[in-house]
């Protein structure tokens, strides 16, 4: 599904990832772990097609994204949903408008998806918050709104960068539950985190794979049943 073939990435002369060779299998639940600065976000951005490797290759759904091909990256967003570390919204639009924004961008009439939208809002427990502006949401609500926006097009792959950082334990577990449910629906989930407790919590409930990044190298790859 997403294959790293001796992929390297550097910001100028600063190497971030070195010779990473990994395959993210379809339908699996992956954790990318490592300390701060290990290259987790860069790894996810390579998975999303936002960055292209400076050496080696990253194949996304069987093809490589050419550098500077913004429209090709845009097309990937239909199959790869992204939950960034900093959940940003268009602050002058309502929560509902923000969550449904991908439908408009892709030219899909929201009326045709009204039932799905209602179900999605109930699933992330934001049905009663649709009319408020994003700045009125709590941290946990913002994360759930970002997840809803990332999955509204029903992508095959969901990438999430530190989705539970700055959240209390209860909210973190609630967010994790959403990702586990998505994985049970057959979605490939890739979560970058430095919170090993979260990995343990997930491993207790579902089969997960972890990819440990140490100083830019994928040194540990293991499956946890």
């Amino acid at each position: 599904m997403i294959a790293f073939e001796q992929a390297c990435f550097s910001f100028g002369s600063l190497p971030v990832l070195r010779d990473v060779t990994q395959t993210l299998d379809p339908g699996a639940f992956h954790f990318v772990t490592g300390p701060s600065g290990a290259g987790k976000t860069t790894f996810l951005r390579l998975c999303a097609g936002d960055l292209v490797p400076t050496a080696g290759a990253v194949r996304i759904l069987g093809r490589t994204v050419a550098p500077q091909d913004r429209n090709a990256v845009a097309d990937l967003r239909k199959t790869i949903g992204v939950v960034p570390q900093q959940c940003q919204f268009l602050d002058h639009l309502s929560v509902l408008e923000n969550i449904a924004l991908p439908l408009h961008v892709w030219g899909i009439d929201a009326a045709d998806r009204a039932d799905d939208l209602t179900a999605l809002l109930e699933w992330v427990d934001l049905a009663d918050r649709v009319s408020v502006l994003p700045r009125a949401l709590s941290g946990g609500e913002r994360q759930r709104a970002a997840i809803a926006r990332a999955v509204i097009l029903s992508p095959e792959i969901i990438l999430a960068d530190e989705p539970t950082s700055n959240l209390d334990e209860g909210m973190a577990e609630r967010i994790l539950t959403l990702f586990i449910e998505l994985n049970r629906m057959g979605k490939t989930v890739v979560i970058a985190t430095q919170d090993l407790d979260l990995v343990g919590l997930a491993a207790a409930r579902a089969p997960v794979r972890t990819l440990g990044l140490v100083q830019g190298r994928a040194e540990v790859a293991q499956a946890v049943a």
Partner: protein
Amino acid sequence: MVRPWGSAFVDRVLPPFAAAYLVGVVAAVSVFLGVLALALGLAAGRMAETWSGELASVATLQVYASADSVEPQAIAALDVLRSTPGVQSVRIIEAAEQHAMLEPWFGSGLALDALPLPLLIEVEADRDLLDKPALVERLAGEAPGAAFDDHTAWRAPLIETAERLQLVAFTALGLLTALLAMSVWLAASGTRMTHLSAISILRQVGARDSYIVRVFTRKFSRNAAIGSLTGVVGALAILMILTKVGTEGYSLAAVAPKGSDWLALALLLPACVALSWIVTALAVRRGLSAEL
């Protein structure tokens, strides 16, 4: 369930921003001045055409002679004119008509009969067929008191003035177009820069360049359309008032648009909207290309 958007949702993707309103104001001023400049240019062109075309076929023969020899000289001159190839018609301008022509300069109280006025003969001729040097030579022989005037002396500087006026008007129109284009470019580029985070969010959900460009072009062209409409209506109203108001004989009626002029002036509106759309699209696309 709250409907997430209406048909014009794309207009709300970006929050309201001052630059879009400024484009409307600049479009209004540019189109207002543009309509006036174009009207002036078209009128100047018409005047130059009239002076070099219609008036060029009319000439005047002035017969200066003592009272007892005016008539024989006039008869001789008329004979010469009627036998000259290219002369289409000749007409003696009566004293009353002559007095009416002079009245604006001398007033009605002056005894014009006391002035030594020449006898005037209006000549209509085909310029291409008329051999002016030959005619002047024949007149000198047969009616020595007759002076042929084809108005070249006063028409030439007037035509040149009208043509230069037209050039100035069209140059002003070109400069206004360039000013509008530059203003829209700066406004679109600046707005894109101040909305980078919004563009980043749009990218995150799969927006292609064409979608992002549309978000900007719709907003800018709509405001340009409102501004242009205001400018066109204002300028046409001013033109109509200016060309109708004025003391007798001194109005700006010559500048009034005629026939297809109205269409040309009205076309400035869609031209302004199209220019705003194209410049916005180019500015935003250029900015997006520089993102990676």
